């Protein structure tokens, strides 16, 4: 909108700030993009995991144990664990940010989710590594 003096201010952002593309939070679209990348990766991993579980239904301990310890299955399990927990952490955090307006509760919940997803991911990773390496 031109003003009477002919001075035209369309944005308060500097050109450098726009070129950096990091936005007001200074992290850009990293989190948004990672949510998409992780969901894309989880499509084949989920199909593989559910298909495997369905085939292992009712199998004795030794069979399930041997299945998880194979290098290829252990690799896919580790990928599934890492990506699932990252996806989960971002998803739950987004929900907390959208619906919880009190800073204390939101921050507490966010940190609790971060801690829980990290610990669960580590526990699952160590379990798979033990299955793959120690048997």
């Amino acid at each position, binding site marked *: 909108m031109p003003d009477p003096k002919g001075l035209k201010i*369309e*944005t308060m*952002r500097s050109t450098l700030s*726009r070129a950096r593309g990091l*936005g007001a939070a200074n992290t850009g679209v990293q989190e948004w993009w990672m949510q*998409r990348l992780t*969901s*894309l990766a*989880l*499509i084949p991993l*989920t199909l593989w995991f*559910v298909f495997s*579980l*369905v*085939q292992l*239904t009712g199998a004795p*301990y030794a069979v*399930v*144990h041997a299945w*998880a310890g194979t290098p290829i299955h252990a690799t896919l*399990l580790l990928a599934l664990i890492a990506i*699932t*927990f990252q996806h*989960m952490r971002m*998803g*739950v955090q987004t*929900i907390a940010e959208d619906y919880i307006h009190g800073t204390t509760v939101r921050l507490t919940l966010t940190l609790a989710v971060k801690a829980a997803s990290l610990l*669960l991911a580590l*526990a*699952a990773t*160590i*379990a*798979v590594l*033990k*299955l793959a390496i120690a048997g």
Partner: protein
Amino acid sequence: MRDVRDVQMLGRTSDGRLVQRPLSGHLSVYLDFDMVMSVGHRITGCALAVGTIVLVWFLVALASGESAYASVSWFLRTPVGYFALFGWTAALWYHFCVGIRHLIWDTGRMYDLPSVHRSRGVILGATAGLTLLTWLIALL
């Protein structure tokens, strides 16, 4: 602009260009099926987050030995365990299907209402089909 109320949806990009912003649903005025499906994506996401605890329990028990594995195996075969597993598969396939539609939406496709209405039928059908298929293969 087709309606005078659209004026509420005007906003500016960071470049200063005028654009039409999407308007959030007025939950206290109306609630349609697509809004329920949208919140369903978040609810199933949270349910799946809780379900990861069972996944970790399963993997840790498998690595710990036969007696630990027997306890998780026993739990999954109780009525509560079956109910949780069934809920987990249904939530997983729902979240899976809606998630794929979200990825398609991110490319700018299928955003119009007729496409949304068509795809919701596909999503509900695929969720039911995949859940049934999973259990049929698992139990037969």
